[in-house]
């Protein structure tokens, strides 16, 4: 069931969605057995920003019917600390590493891409483009022009694969096409859907950050459609995700055109969901190939 993704050999097609699995914390909770049975064929880091971020004030979570709204605010240690202390620990996982980065300008993205790509532990980079560009005020990933221009700025900085994480909050196919034109090696989708919740005790927003993003089983039908549309529009590989909790769900995304799939919220419910989905998917693909 091995697949090649942008030249990276993966033992199976199941990755984690960025920000849904902290391999260092998980190893602390579950011990080194986690390494022996690591659930994903490649590990995608939480998004790294140039400087440390504390994240949003709590509450950060709200459970919805078959879903979860999160408003985490990208807490992370910042580029330098990530490179110095996190990356060597992630290299012990024994799977290819994809590092997610987010800047608020071309210069910030350039600093991140240069710093991360220079490290031999890193196989690929994922660009989180869900933030505004401070120079234009536009959310990069919601604008084909902004996305293409960002890729043209960072593409020359590294030969390593660049993956663009697409938002479902605008029609993603034109942005995917722009990313590929700018030199992206792959696209991944879907990120979370913008959402909010009301404090049941009072009418104000529940989340400390005011609004957040919806994920989980509830978003799977949207992911399935958007993956299909994007896969039809670009020739670069697509990493599909959104509400995957079984091998059949992963199979649906592959059938829709994804080369690899990612598990996100389901890992919260089942820490080894990635491994389970991969083994269910293997049975699913064998069944499909025999009919």
């Amino acid at each position, binding site marked *: 069931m091995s697949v090649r993704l942008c030249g990276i050999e993966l033992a199976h097609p199941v990755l984690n969605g960025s920000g849904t699995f902290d391999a260092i914390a998980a190893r602390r909770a579950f011990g080194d057995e986690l390494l022996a049975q690591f659930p994903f064929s490649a590990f995608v880091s939480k998004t790294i920003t140039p400087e440390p971020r504390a994240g949003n004030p709590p509450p950060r979570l709200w459970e919805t019917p078959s879903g979860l709204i999160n408003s985490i605010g990208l807490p992370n240690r910042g580029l330098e600390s990530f490179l110095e202390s996190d990356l060597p620990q992630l290299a012990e996982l024994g799977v290819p590493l994809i590092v997610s980065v987010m800047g608020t300008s071309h210069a910030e993205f350039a600093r991140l891409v240069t710093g991360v790509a220079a490290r031999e532990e890193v196989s690929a980079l994922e660009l989180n483009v869900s933030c505004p560009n401070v120079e234009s005020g536009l959310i990069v990933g919601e604008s084909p022009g902004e996305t293409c221009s960002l890729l043209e700025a960072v593409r020359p900085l590294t030969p390593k694969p660049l993956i663009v994480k697409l938002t479902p909050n605008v029609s993603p196919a034109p942005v995917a096409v722009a990313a590929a034109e700018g030199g992206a090696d792959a696209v991944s989708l879907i990120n979370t859907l913008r959402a909010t919740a009301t404090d049941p005790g009072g009418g104000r927003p529940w989340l400390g950050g005011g609004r957040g993003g919806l994920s989980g089983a509830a978003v799977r039908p949207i992911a399935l459609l958007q993956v299909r549309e994007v896969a039809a529009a670009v020739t670069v590989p697509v990493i599909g995700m959104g509400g995957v909790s079984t091998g059949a769900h992963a199979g649906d995304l592959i059938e829709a055109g994804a080369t690899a799939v990612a598990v996100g919220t389901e890992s919260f419910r089942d820490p080894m969901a990635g*491994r389970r989905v991969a083994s269910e998917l293997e049975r699913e693909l064998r069944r499909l190939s025999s009919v």
Partner: protein
Amino acid sequence: MRSAATPGLGARVTASLGRRACEVTRNVQAGGYRIFSALDRDGPEPAAGQFYMLATEAGWSAEEGRPYLARAFSVADCEPGPEGVRLDFLVHAVGPATRRLCALGEGERLWLHGPLGRPFAPPAELAPVTAGAILVGGGIGIAPLALWRRRLAGAGIPSRVLLGFRDSERSGGLDLFRCSEIKLASEDGHRGHHGHVTDLLEVMLEGDDAGSAAVYACGPPAMLEAVRLLCREHGVACELALEAPMACGFGACFGCAVPLAGGGYMRLCVDGPVVGGEEIETALVPGGGGH
């Protein structure tokens, strides 16, 4: 089955990898609460203060798609046996997940992962002069203190137990403390001191032996904050078992942010749920109550 050797007092126990389905062996009324037991055939014996993420195998997502995520529960008691470790949980039906757990039938299966998080530390680790412990529990929060009292007694460390409840409907579980002498308070005056459990603590801390004990507390946020401030005022070391909404329990979701005294946040699931009173900015963690 793994060896069920009792861990060193206060030592963090590493969870078995992934979630496992455990049979429910008992579910009994305990005042206004329920105590249910699950047989964990493949897990270690937890340390007091650690917790498990729980979901039922069937009927999770029953009430209009909720509960969707597993819920965190401190272990109230445990007993190793030939077939595995019996884990006891104290639960109060206040939301879709707790209603489902209260209705568990014998022989039903429960998904769990754990034990997770940082446990209570022995009194001597909190302050060198401490000889004993004062345990302060409120409502459903008495659960982890019951196991901690047993563990302390097993190590020959004396403890005094102060428990408070709001009213007779929201009280129960005293038997978990197994006949130790308990001082009670109730806000409606139905049992013990008519008032808050912190009134009892204040009297105790003003006694001659105030400095000779460390305080351990678990209960509603307002109670914990009152305990924290009382201990600070009297120069007494304390540990608090906090609660915050969490989706995963192993550091993946970053949802359970608790503000640190020095700025920034901790993830309560991996850096708590037991925290030193001086580590945090406040015990008034917003966002509870979604059970």
